[in-house]
C-alpha cells in the first residue's frame, strides 16, 4: 500500500499520459518437449495504444498464436516483459492473472466457446459473475451488451438455438460486458460464412468507432485489411508493422 500522498502524486503524473494497452518488450517464449526445444517467440517488441484496431497476421507456425496467448495472459513469457494497461504481469501467479484477464481482456475465440447449457444472457454474464458483480446489475449490463451486438431479442436462447454468426456476436457481447481495456479476438471469423463474417467485422468497426482497443489475430488477408494497423509475424519475429491500406485511404 502506498501512502495517500504518494498515490495522489502518482495519479497526477500518469493522468495526462495513459500507459499503452499493450507494452511488450524483448518477448521470448521457448517450449520444451523432452530434448526438443522450440522458440515460438524470439524477441518481440509491441506497443499498442488505447483505441487502436490492430490485426496480427502470419502463417500457421509463425508464433502468432503464442503471441495471442501471451497478450491474453493465458501464457507467460520465458524472458522479456509484458505490461497490460500498465499492469506488470511478469511475476503474477495464476490467481492474479485470472483477475487481470477478467478486468482487462475480453476474449473472442474462433470456436465461440459459449457454454451450451446456459442462455445467451447467462453466458454474457459470466465475466461479471467471476468479478463478483451483484445479480441485478449483472443482468442489466449483460442485456445492454447483447443489445449493442443486435441480439437484444435473443437473451433467453441457448447457443444451440443460434446461428454461428449470432453465437459469435454473443461471444463479442461477453467480451465487452466487463468494459475491458482490450478486446482480443483469435480468428473470430474462422468458423463463419461470408455473411456472418461481414456482420462480425462490421461490429468490430463500430466498436473501434466507439474508441475500443481491438487486437485481432487472423490469417485472412481480407479480415486484416479491415483493421487500421497490420502486424506481420514470421518465425517468432515481427517482420512488418504498418498502417493497413484502409487506414491511409480516408
Amino acid at each position: 500500500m502506498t501512502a495517500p500522498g504518494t498515490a495522489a502524486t502518482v495519479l497526477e503524473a500518469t493522468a495526462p499520459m495513459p500507459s499503452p494497452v499493450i507494452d511488450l518488450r524483448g518477448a521470448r517464449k521457448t517450449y520444451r518437449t523432452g530434448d526438443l526445444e522450440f522458440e515460438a517467440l524470439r524477441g518481440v517488441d509491441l506497443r499498442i495504444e488505447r483505441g487502436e484496431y490492430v490485426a496480427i497476421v502470419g502463417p500457421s507456425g509463425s508464433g502468432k498464436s503464442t503471441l495471442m496467448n501471451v497478450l491474453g495472459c493465458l501464457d507467460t513469457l520465458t524472458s522479456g516483459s509484458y505490461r497490460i494497461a500498465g499492469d506488470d504481469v511478469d511475476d503474477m501467479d495464476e490467481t492474479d492473472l485470472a483477475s487481470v484477464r477478467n478486468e482487462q481482456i475480453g476474449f473472442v475465440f474462433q470456436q465461440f466457446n459459449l457454454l451450451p447449457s446456459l442462455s445467451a444472457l447467462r453466458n454474457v454474464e459470466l465475466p461479471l459473475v467471476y468479478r463478483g458483480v451483484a445479480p441485478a446489475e449483472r443482468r442489466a449490463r449483460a442485456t445492454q451488451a447483447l443489445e449493442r451486438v443486435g441480439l437484444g431479442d435473443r437473451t433467453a436462447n441457448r447457443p444451440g438455438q443460434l446461428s454461428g454468426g449470432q453465437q459469435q456476436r454473443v461471444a463479442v457481447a461477453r467480451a465487452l460486458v466487463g468494459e475491458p481495456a482490450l478486446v482480443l479476438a483469435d480468428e473470430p471469423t474462422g468458423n463463419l460464412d461470408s455473411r456472418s463474417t461481414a456482420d462480425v467485422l462490421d461490429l468490430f468497426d463500430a466498436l473501434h468507432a466507439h474508441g475500443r482497443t481491438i487486437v485481432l489475430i487472423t490469417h485472412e488477408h481480407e479480415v486484416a485489411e479491415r483493421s487500421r494497423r497490420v502486424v506481420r509475424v514470421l518465425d517468432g519475429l515481427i517482420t512488418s508493422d504498418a498502417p493497413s491500406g484502409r487506414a491511409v485511404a480516408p
Partner: protein
Amino acid sequence: MSWTETLSTAWHAIRAHTMRSLLTVLGILIGIAAVILTVGLGLGTQKDVSEDISSLGSNLLIVTPGSSTDSSGVRGGFGSASTLTTADAEALGSDVAVPDVAAVTAEKESSQSLEAGDANWTTTVTGVTGDWLDVRSRELASGEFVGDGSTDEVVLGPETATELFGSTRVVGRTVSIAGTTFDVVGVLEAAGSSASTDLDDTAVVSMTAMTSGITGGADTSVSTIYLKATDTDAISAAYQEAQSLLLALHGATGADAADFTIDSQDSLVSTATSVYRTLTVLLAGVAGLSLLVGGIGVMNIMLVSVTERTREIGLRKALGAHPGAIRRQFLTEASILGVTGGLVGAGLGVLAAVTLPAVLDSSIVVSPVAVAGSLAVALAIGLVFGVYPAVRAARLAPIDALRSE
C-alpha cells in the same frame, strides 16, 4: 463468485448428466442406508436382550456352578459336574445368614420327552425348590403350583400344553415323563421367549420329583440358584452375604477359590450388551466399506467430469475464474452428490427401520446420532473424494484446457 452462484452452477452441472449423477448418488445412498440399518438392528437387539434380562426382575442374583476366570486362568467346574446342590439353596434361604435375600429358588433342568395319549413333545423339564413363581416373576394362568416335595405333580408352560393337548385348559389331565405319570396341576401364564430359551415351552416339577423320578439316583446337584434381594438397593449386600455363605459351605478360602459364579442382572446386561455392541460395530464396519466404495464412485465420476469439461474449465479461467473458484465449483458438485445420497439414504434407512421390524420380528432402533453422523459422513465423503478431482481441475493451465477437444 458467491456461494449461491457456485451452488447453482454445480446443480446445473449435475442436472446436465442426470443418469450418471443418480447412479453415483445410489452408491452413497446404499452405504448410508446400510449403516443406519445395521446400527439400528444392533441397537435394537441390544435393547431386546437387556429388556429380556430386565424382565427377570431388577433385584435378582443368579448363582451358577463353576467359577469365573481369575488371574490363574480358567478354573475347573464350569460345564462339568455341578458344584451347587439343593443344600446350598436351602442354606441361602436362611434369614440369619443372608438377611438381604427375600426368596430363593433352585433349578435343575433336563430335556425330556413328555407323553399324553398319542401325543409326545420334547421340552425342558425343570425341577424347582422354594418360591419359584415369585423369584422368576411368573404367574399361573390356571390351577395351582406344584407342591414342595410332591412326586407326581407338574405345571406346564402354555405352549407345551398346547402341543400335548391342543389346549391350555388341561388341569386334571395326566402326562408321562420318563416313565412316571404326573398330574397336571397348573398352567403358566405366557411370558414370551427370551434370547436363549422359550419361557412358554417348559414343564415344572418339584425338585424331589426331578431327582428321584426323572434323573434318578440321589444326585442333589442343581443347575442354577436364583436369589431375590429384598429390594434393588440390597443387591450388593445380598451378593456379599450369599458369596461368603457359599464360600464357607464349599470350604473355599477366598473369592479366588470359589467354584461358583454369582451374576447380578446388571452384569448379565453389560455382558450381553458388550457382545452385541461388538457385533454392531462389525456390521457397521461392513456397511462403512460400502460407503467407502460409494465415495470412490463419487471420485471416479468427478474425474470423468473434469476430463469431459476441460474446455469449459479453460474458458471459465480465461474469463477470469480464479483457481479457487474452479476448485470450489467441483468440490460443491461432489458435496451435492454426497449430501443428496446421504439424505435419501437416511430417509430410506429410517423408512426401512420403521417397516422392517414387523417382518423381521426384531426391533430396529433408529439412533439420531447414527443418522446425523452418516449425513456428516456423506458430506465428508463428497468433500474428501472431491478434493483430488477439484484440485486437478483448478490446476489445469487455461491455454491447454482451451485447446483440448
